[in-house]
């Protein structure tokens, strides 16, 4: 605060990030309605929970480095893996992607803010609430929920100690609140994209990130009510003696599996679609080429949305599902290979004959793409009924899932952070630390997740705290990989913290990227373009085409440089 420049006192009090103003950090701890503040609130809180989930994972891998259950009690292991999954999904991935939505959607479409700023802030502030509820479950008698992030009844409603407030109770509460928060977010994002685009920005001039955000948030709106209802019924069975899922009372545990997977399979697409968006934004920038087949890539996002809602039974192939249903859901699941294939091939074609710049962001994109191709192939294997009957519920699934959720989605998130960090903080990150972060993460991820596929093929069930000695070698490799991933966080944190504190000042468009957000100063003013919203006159990604993106582009470029 000891800046020698004098500021208008009104600037100091404003809750918005004003360029050039002293860093009024208090806004990040207040009920702030600015999407850019909320975006950073989401991302910072989510990254904290990434560390929490990562520590849980490393304790698990410490247990699994030897066959016997010797580090923690098996009941503790069950709690750890349940919380690891729940934290990573509900407290890291969903919130951090909502952070990206908040930061990126308004500037990308030329809107001043979200459609419903207060709803937006309320959705964010639910996040620390259910975060604390979930963390509090470590402290209640009996420990946190130990029934996995699926929480399948009847196991999840056994309640061994009989207390009303127990780990499972808090878990369901947190998940239901997370669902409500996500629905509030989804209403906001969808409305903003439909209603608040800049003049001239038709659907086929919309950046792919917004297309994928739209596709993903549509899934939230359709699917989340089902999960939330399923969770409420579970809460009633657990706490109020109903028997929706208890066979003794005429219920059926299979009903829960349908409720759960109807949302929770599409949930993976809610997480992966925005990352497809990030890939589609970044490959053109760093390959200096237009996105290959832009329109098809855009529409394919909605192909994934539609298909994602009709594949859920592939999680239940071995649950007593009749053969005709297995066949039907195998076919729908395999169809997903088509729109995702279109995207993968389009990205590769975008690289072809480009002028590749291997920045940290680009490296994470390339690594994520290679990992995703691998995960796509194991995904088709898992869709194949007879193969799934063998590898389902084994470590093969754990390996596949982590290759998607970490080696693709989290890679894409890292890429997005390195790419847009200068835009929203006004500071450049350090490339050397970034590349070290990438190298360690890439090697750690392969070492961690590839041996899991092998263990699964050999018949190691997932979620075990101990295992037969024949799986020891694969598990030692996986544990070493996990610890390496822990080490990889050090350069990342160092980079982010030191860059924000004293990194070199970022110009408005450090990557020579095309897009409305790059016509704004870094960081953008509170209301982005304010009253001077540009008129969009061509599609995105016009690299090498020599067409301006907006009318009177030179004016906006100059204005951004002046700020």
């Amino acid at each position, binding site marked *: 605060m000891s800046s020698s420049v004098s500021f208008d006192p009104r600037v100091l009090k404003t809750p918005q990030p004003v360029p050039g103003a002293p860093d009024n950090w208090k806004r990040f701890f207040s009920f702030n309605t600015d999407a850019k503040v909320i975006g950073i609130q989401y991302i910072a809180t989510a990254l904290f929970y990434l560390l929490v989930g990562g520590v849980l994972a490393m304790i698990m891998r410490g247990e699994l480095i030897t066959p016997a259950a010797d580090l923690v009690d098996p009941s503790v292991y069950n709690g750890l893996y349940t919380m690891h999954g729940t934290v990573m999904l509900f407290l890291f991935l969903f919130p951090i992607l909502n952070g990206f939505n908040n930061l990126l959607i308004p500037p990308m479409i030329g809107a001043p803010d979200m459609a419903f700023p207060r709803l937006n802030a309320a959705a964010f502030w639910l996040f620390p609430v259910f975060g604390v509820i979930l963390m509090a479950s470590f402290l209640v008698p009996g420990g946190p929920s130990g029934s996995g992030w699926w929480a399948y009844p009847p*196991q999840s409603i056994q309640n061994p100690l009989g207390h009303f407030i127990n780990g499972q109770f808090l878990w369901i509460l947190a998940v239901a609140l997370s669902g409500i928060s996500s629905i509030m977010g989804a209403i906001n994002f969808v409305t903003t994209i439909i209603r608040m685009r800049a003049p001239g920005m038709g659907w086929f001039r919309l950046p792919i990130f917004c297309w994928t955000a739209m596709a993903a948030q549509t899934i939230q709106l359709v699917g989340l009510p089902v999960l939330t209802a399923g969770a409420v019924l579970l809460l009633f069975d657990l706490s109020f003696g109903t028997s929706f899922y208890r066979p003794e009372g005429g219920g059926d*545990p299979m009903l829960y599996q349908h409720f759960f997977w109807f949302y929770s399979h599409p949930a993976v697409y809610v997480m992966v679609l925005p990352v497809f968006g990030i890939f589609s934004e970044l490959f053109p920038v760093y390959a200096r080429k237009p996105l290959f087949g832009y329109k098809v890539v855009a529409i394919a996002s909605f192909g994934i949305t539609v298909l994602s809602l009709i594949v859920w039974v592939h999680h239940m192939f071995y649950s007593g599902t009749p053969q005709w249903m297995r066949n039907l859901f*195998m076919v729908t699941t395999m169809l997903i290979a088509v729109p995702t294939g279109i995207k993968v091939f389009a990205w590769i074609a975008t*690289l072809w004959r480009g002028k590749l710049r*291997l920045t940290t962001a680009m490296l994470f994109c390339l690594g994520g793409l290679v990992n995703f191709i691998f995960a796509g192939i194991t995904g088709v294997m898992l869709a194949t009924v007879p193969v799934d009957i063998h590898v389902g519920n084994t470590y093969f699934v754990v390996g596949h899932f982590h290759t998607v959720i970490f080696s693709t989605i989290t890679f894409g998130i890292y890429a997005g952070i390195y790419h847009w960090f200068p835009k929203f903080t006004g500071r450049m990150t350090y490339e050397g630390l970034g590349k070290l972060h990438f190298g360690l993460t890439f090697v750690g991820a392969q070492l961690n997740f590839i041996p899991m596929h092998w263990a699964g093929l050999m018949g190691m069930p997932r979620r075990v705290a101990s295992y037969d000695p024949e799986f020891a070698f694969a598990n030692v490799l996986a544990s070493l990989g996990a610890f390496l991933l822990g080490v990889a966080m050090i350069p990342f944190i160092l980079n982010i913290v030191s860059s924000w504190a004293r990194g070199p000042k970022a110009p408005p468009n450090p990557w020579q990227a095309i897009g409305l957000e790059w016509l704004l100063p870094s960081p953008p003013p509170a209301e982005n373009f304010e009253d001077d919203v540009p008129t969009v006159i061509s599609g995105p990604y016009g690299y090498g085409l020599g067409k301006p993106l907006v009318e009177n582009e030179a004016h906006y470029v100059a204005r951004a440089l002046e700020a």
Partner: protein
Amino acid sequence: MTNLSAASAGPLRPRTLGLVAIALLLDGVASLRMADWSHQWLPLPASAAAPYVDDLFALETGIGTFIFLGCVSVIGWTLLFNRAPKYDMDDGDPIEGNLRLEITWTILPLVIVMLIAWHAIRVSDTLATLGGKVRVTGTAEAMALANSGAESSRSVAAGSFGPIEVIGRQWSWEFVYPNGVRSTELHLPLNLRSSFHLIATDVIHGFFIPAFRLKQDMIPGSVIDYSLIPTRVGRYRLRDSMFSGGYFSSNQTDVVVESEADFQHWLEQAARQPLKPGYNEARRLYEKRLAEGDRGWATVPPAPPPLVHVSTNPAAVHVS
């Protein structure tokens, strides 16, 4: 793969075509080798289903390797030859799309996955392991239903054995044979179709024998009919594959496949043994936990070990 032909922005030169052909050939050879190798990533095949599953997996490994190497080669090529030199701020070729290419890479994956699906459906029909499912309201009703099935002549065709009741508990396995013998390790006759009634008494369990490549959940409130044909003599692992709480990891036992004569002999011998509590790893661990002051997070206590004629031998060595 198709994307290699993206090289042809202009007319195809013979040299380019030659390079692509060599690349595809190498890719094909590597894929065949991987498909071959994939059999070694799996346990020994010990049931009639195993060869079908392994071949399907090998087919997918081959196709998957071909696509993966194809894509990664193109990415690698661009990394080697399309990198911008330092300080080169130019843009790449402004290629916006190629309709023919896009149609190709939409249709081709569609055809490939539909062929795989069609093949997989035929394999499932051949295996036909899953029978019917009857809803019940509790364990007592499940047992009664399973027993009535055993007494009547339903479902037991010539050349098959069973039905064997498979009872899953937190955390033990119990097998009841048609002659009333009870055991905690599963004995099966070689090359006969054995049929099962799968019953879970408390929570969902998974009946999973990796060497057989077969798995079926056992669901409280349902009696599920299941059958399979063991094809190799030996001792294999049977694991609970559906997370079932506290001592889930310890809920494993062995499957012993014997010649039909040996199996009949075992059944007769077993019938003469007295009933005694079976070996139970979960119980041992739980008692150890209690002895050490009951630290850890909450778990339901293990169900009492079932009273059986033949118990599992924890020291026995399984093949896979």
